[in-house]
């Protein structure tokens, strides 16, 4: 098990709601029904070290409800490492140590009283390579998370499977072969199945680690569109190497870069439009313009 919280962090007060959080500035649509305007997740001085060697440190930012937050930065800057800290995937790595404070709503992610399995059903994850369970059918994959969480009623499972597959834009192509093995799907379909599988558990936050990097451009485009649609349903944090992708899908952006000692640090965090057009830090400008990394 991972040790954490080397220092007690100050209790966090929720940020007051702002107009910007509740109104879509292009359409004027008001989100008051869903969006609280409060951050769903808060990172305070988060760091991750493997066997004493720090991989990423000093990361603080807020993740807002029903927004897409992109983590960008060159290879090795700790994007994956940071993302995996958010749902405690580092628990299985003995040498990993997570420091700082991560809040999910009122839950301290690394508090001793937080059940990691419960946490992971609130913070879902989609991986870089599609990883449906090969021994399970499409249907079983879609409801696997619900079954892990103790749902047994067939009617409930059926309903959830359909709703998740519809949400992942997969229902139309698989509804007549739900019993087929997941391995019969194409790579893009498999990734959408993995998204459906994560959505079925109805997480508050969905973590996606370069979800399109193993896919061709067309499959990538469909996943990107899907991500845009999912925004109404779930808060998304996505790691991407692709600047165009970040520009297309992200509301907010965090730029990580490793310093002299090869440890990743948060260089800049802000709205995507600002980060891509007039960032505060010259290193951000260099990176988004493809000048290094």
């Amino acid at each position, binding site marked *: 098990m991972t040790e954490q919280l080397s220092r007690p962090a100050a209790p966090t007060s929720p940020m007051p709601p702002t107009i910007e959080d509740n109104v879509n500035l292009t359409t004027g649509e008001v989100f008051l029904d869903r969006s609280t305007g409060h951050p769903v997740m808060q990172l305070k001085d988060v760091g991750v070290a493997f066997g004493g060697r720090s991989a990423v440190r000093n990361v603080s930012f807020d993740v807002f409800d029903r927004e897409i937050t992109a983590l960008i930065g060159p290879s090795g800057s700790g994007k994956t490492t940071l993302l995996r800290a958010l*749902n405690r*995937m580092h628990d*299985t790595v*003995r040498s990993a140590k997570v420091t700082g404070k991560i809040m999910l709503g009122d839950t301290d992610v690394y508090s001793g009283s937080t059940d990691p*399995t*419960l*946490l*992971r*059903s609130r913070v*879902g*994850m989609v*991986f870089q*390579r599609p*990883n*449906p*369970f*090969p*021994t*399970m059918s499409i249907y079983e994959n879609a409801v*696997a*998370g619900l*079954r*892990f*969480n103790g749902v047994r009623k067939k009617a409930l499972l059926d309903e959830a499977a359909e709703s998740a597959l519809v949400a992942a834009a997969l229902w139309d192509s698989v509804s007549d072969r739900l019993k087929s*093995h997941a391995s019969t799907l194409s790579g893009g379909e498999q990734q959408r199945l*993995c998204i459906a*599988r*994560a959505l079925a*558990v109805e997480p508050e936050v969905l973590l996606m680690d370069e979800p399109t990097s193993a896919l061709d451009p067309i499959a990538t485009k469909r996943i990107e569109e899907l991500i845009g649609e999912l925004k109404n349903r779930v808060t998304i944090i996505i790691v991407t190497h692709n600047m165009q992708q970040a520009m297309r899908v992200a509301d907010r952006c965090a730029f990580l870069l490793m310093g002299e000692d090869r440890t990743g640090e948060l260089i800049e965090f802000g709205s995507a439009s600002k980060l891509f057009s007039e960032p505060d830090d010259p290193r951000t400008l260099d990176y988004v313009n493809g000048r290094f990394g």
Partner: protein
Amino acid sequence: MTATSSEPLGREKRHSRFSLPNGGYRAILIVGGAIFAALVIWFLYSIVNQSRPAFSTLGFSWIIQKTWNPNLHKFGLLPFILGTVETTAIAMVLAVPIGLGSALALAYLVPQRAKVLLGTAVELLAAVPSVVYGLWGVIALAPLFREYVEPFSSSAFGWTGLFNGANSGVGLMLAGTILFVMVLPTMVAISRDVLAVVPKEQVEGAMALGATQWQVLRKVVLPEARAGLLGAFILATGRALGETVAVALVIGNSDYIAHSLKSPSATLASLIINNFGEASGTELAALFGAGLVLLVIGLTVNSIARALVRRAGGSGSVASVAVA
């Protein structure tokens, strides 16, 4: 393996200076395959041929008759078939849960350093010659069984009727136990390797959905390793069925059907090794017949296990790797 593999290999373009021209590859593989096939056919033919006198003088029913008494010209194999199946069953009933549990622990729970140490120990145990296990059974386990295990089993489980008779130490129970100890390292070593190759992505995929460690093992790791685990089972069962010396040392060598787990008994393999020296004529043919029956039992277990894997939808490929 066999000549069928020559096709893809033969077409492969290699540029190493050690590579043979395509024709050379092909020739080596075809000759190798032919030699292998010829050996198998010759072997089977010899056994069948040698056992034929038993079938011609005794008919087919002698195989399942109850009495083995060469003086009376009776060569019934039933006591030995039962002894073989019973000792193997005892061994596997113990080896499957304990072996699987140890393999899971080795693959997923034990810290890295202990993993290496325990892994080496398991591989070492798998390489110990069976006669050593047999000697250990006679010297160390038999007295223990006579003094403690058998009296205890009789008083605790006597009501099952499986533990009647005197406490002699040697017998079905001890033979089954020795076989268990012998096949356990094989079970553990192969199962561990099979479990270890279940992709980390699958494990993490399940974890990320909120699965507990137990659910990850039960719903993702075990189903994916199923084919390979059955391979481990087949290999271990084969070893238990055919084990000769160790069993002959601890089973008590009785030609009668055992009426209790404490009774002395014999297996097809121990029958052969105990009688082969002085046998001739029909008895010798009957011993070859016993070998043939053992072969059939082994093949049956193998094909049942394979059918199970196939029906369960496993790839089967891992199993063949483990068995090969």
